C-alpha cells in the first residue's frame, strides 16, 4: 500500500482561483517525495488538502489508506506537519510543546516520558528543552518543530518549505537533520520546496508543480538525464526562434532545446561541448556562451518557460 495516494485532486478557492488542477501522484512507504515549484504553484495548497485544513474541490487523497475527506481523524492520526511559518507555543517550554503533541496524538504518557528526551537529544535540544520556545533561535525552533512532528511516530511527515527564511548556516544544519529522516524506513516524507538543491539532495522522487499542475515526476537523476550529461547555454542578439531553427538544422540542438528571453539552452546528446560550441561559433550566433551540467532548474525552465529562482 502506498503511504500517500492522490487522485485528480483539485482546489479552487472562493473567488475562482484554481490553485491545484487535478494532480495525481503516489508515494511509497519510506519514500522521500519532493513537490518542487515556485511560490503560488500549489504546493502548500496540496499539503493543506492532505492535512485536512483545506477542503478539496474535487478528487481524492489517502494517507496510509485513510481518505482525508472521509476519514480525517484517522488521516491526521498517521501524519504530522512541519509548517512553513513558525507554529509553536512560544511561552511554553520546548518540552511542553512536545508533550502537548504527544497527548493529542494519543502517545501514552509513560512512553512519551522516555521518547521526548531521546528526540530532544537527537535534535540537539537537550539543553534547551526546558526553556520557553520563544527564546529559541530560528534553527532551534525548526528543530523543535521537527522533533514535535516525530513525537507521535507518524507514518507520513509533511515538511512544508521547512528551510524558508533561515540563514545559510542554519539551513545547512537543518538539511542535515532532514537528511537523517531518510534513515527511518517506516517514515514517508513529503517535502515542498522551491530550492533545487534541497530536492536533489533529499528526495527519492520529485514532482515539479507549475500553476497547479504536475508537469514532471521522476527521480532527480532521471529528470536530469532527460537533458543529457551536459548542455550549452548561449545568449543571442537576434531572433531566438531563428537561432533555435539554425541549431536544429545544423544537428547541434534537438527538440528539447529551449529558449527563455534571449537565452537559448541546448542539451547535448551525442555531441561534446567543444563540438557544439564550435558549431555555434560557425553559425555566428553566440553573444555569450557557456557549457555546464544540467540542473533541475533547467528541467523546470524547459517545462514551464520560467526559472524556479525567478518564479520563487
Amino acid at each position, binding site marked *: 500500500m502506498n503511504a500517500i495516494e492522490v487522485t485528480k485532486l483539485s482546489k479552487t*478557492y472562493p473567488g475562482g482561483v484554481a490553485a491545484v488542477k487535478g494532480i495525481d501522484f503516489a508515494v511509497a512507504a519510506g519514500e522521500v517525495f519532493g513537490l518542487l515549484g515556485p511560490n503560488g504553484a500549489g504546493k502548500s495548497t496540496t499539503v*493543506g488538502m492532505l*492535512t*485536512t*485544513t*483545506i*477542503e478539496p474541490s474535487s478528487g481524492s487523497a489517502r494517507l496510509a489508506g485513510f481518505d482525508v475527506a472521509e476519514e480525517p*481523524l*484517522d488521516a*491526521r*492520526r*498517521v*501524519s*504530522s*506537519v512541519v*509548517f512553513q*511559518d513558525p*507554529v*509553536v*507555543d*512560544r*511561552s*511554553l517550554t520546548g518540552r*511542553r*510543546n512536545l508533550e*502537548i*503533541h504527544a*497527548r*493529542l*496524538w*494519543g*502517545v501514552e504518557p509513560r*512512553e512519551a516520558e522516555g*521518547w521526548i528526551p*531521546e*528526540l530532544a537529544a*537527537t*535534535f*540537539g535540544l537537550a539543553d534547551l528543552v526546558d526553556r520557553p520556545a520563544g527564546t529559541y533561535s530560528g534553527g532551534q525552533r525548526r528543530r523543535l518543530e521537527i522533533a*514535535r512532528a*516525530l513525537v*507521535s*511516530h*507518524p*507514518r507520513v511527515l509533511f515538511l512544508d518549505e521547512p528551510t524558508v527564511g533561515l540563514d545559510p548556516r542554519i539551513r545547512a*544544519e537543518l538539511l*542535515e*537533520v532532514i*537528511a*537523517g*529522516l531518510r*534513515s*527511518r*524506513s*517506516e*517514515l514517508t516524507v513529503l517535502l515542498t520546496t522551491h530550492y533545487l538543491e534541497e530536492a536533489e539532495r533529499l528526495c527519492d522522487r520529485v514532482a515539479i508543480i507549475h500553476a497547479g499542475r504536475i508537469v514532471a515526476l521522476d527521480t532527480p537523476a532521471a529528470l536530469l538525464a532527460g537533458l543529457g550529461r551536459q548542455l550549452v547555454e548561449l545568449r543571442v542578439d537576434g531572433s531566438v526562434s531563428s537561432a533555435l531553427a539554425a541549431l536544429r538544422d545544423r544537428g547541434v540542438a534537438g527538440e528539447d532545446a529551449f529558449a527563455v528571453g534571449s537565452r537559448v539552452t541546448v542539451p547535448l546528446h551525442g555531441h561534446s561541448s567543444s563540438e557544439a560550441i564550435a558549431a555555434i561559433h560557425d553559425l555566428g550566433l553566440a553573444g555569450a556562451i557557456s557549457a555546464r551540467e544540467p540542473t533541475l532548474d533547467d528541467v523546470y525552465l524547459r517545462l514551464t518557460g520560467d526559472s524556479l529562482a525567478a518564479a520563487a
Partner: protein
Amino acid sequence: MSTAEIAIPAPTRRPRALGPLATLARRRFQLTARTPRELFVPLLTPIMFALVIAPALKTALHTSASYESFVAIGTVGLLIPLNTMFSGLSVIVDRISGAQPELLTAPIPRGLLVIGNLLVALAITALQVGVLIAVAVARGIHFHATGTGVLWFVAAGVLFTVGMYGLAEILAGRVPRQEEYIARVPAIAILPWFLAGALFPIIALPSFLTWVAKFLPLTHGLALMRYGLLQDSTGLHAIWGLSDPTAMAALSLAVIGGFALLLTAASIRVFSRSAVR
C-alpha cells in the same frame, strides 16, 4: 550536530476525547497564566465600579445601602463579558502567532479546541467573580444568600459565561485581526450592560428600551443573580410580570440556558468551518 537517526515505533492509537480535552484546557490555562493581562485587566473596571463608583453614586443620589449590593451584582454583568471577550482575543493570537495550526492537524474533533478554551474561560471568570464578591463583602456590601440562592447565582453566571464565550469565539472566528476584534468589543460587552439593569432597574428606561432589555440575556442573568444573592425578584418581575419568583427564575434560567446552548453550538460550527479553507 550529527545526523538524526531514530527508529520509528508503531503508530499511535486513537486518543480518547477526555484526554485531549484535558490537554487542551491545560495548555490554554498555561498560556493564560503567562499572560497576566488576561487574568487581571478584566477585573480592574468592575472592581472600580464596586468599590468607587457604587459608593459614590449612593452618596450622590442618597439611595439606600442596598444600592451598593445592586451595583455589585451589576458589575458581575460587566466582568463576565469583558473576561470572555479577552479570552476570545487569545484565540486570534493563537491563530496568528501560536500553535493553533498544529492543533488543527491533531486527530481530535476540532470542537474540542473550543470546549477546552471555554473551560478555562469559565474557570478564570469564576475566579474573578469570586474575587469581586469577596472584595465587595470586605468593603461592607451585604448579600442575603441562601444555599438555593447561591445555586441560582452560579447557574446564571455559568450559563451566561458559556453563552458569552460562544459569542467571543464566533467573533474571533469571523474577524482576521486583533484590532478589528477589539473595535467590536464595546458594542458586545459594554453597550448591553447599560441597558440590562446593571446600574438601575430596566423599568427606568424609556419603554421601548425596556422591551429591548427584556430580550437581552444579560438582563435575565442579572435579574437571576440578584434573585439568588439578594433575594430580590424585582428584576425578574420587570421582565416577566408574574407573581411566582421561582417560576420567573426558571424562565430566565431557560432563556440563558438557550443562549448558552445556541452560542456554544454556533461557535463550534464557526470554528470548525473557519479551520478549513
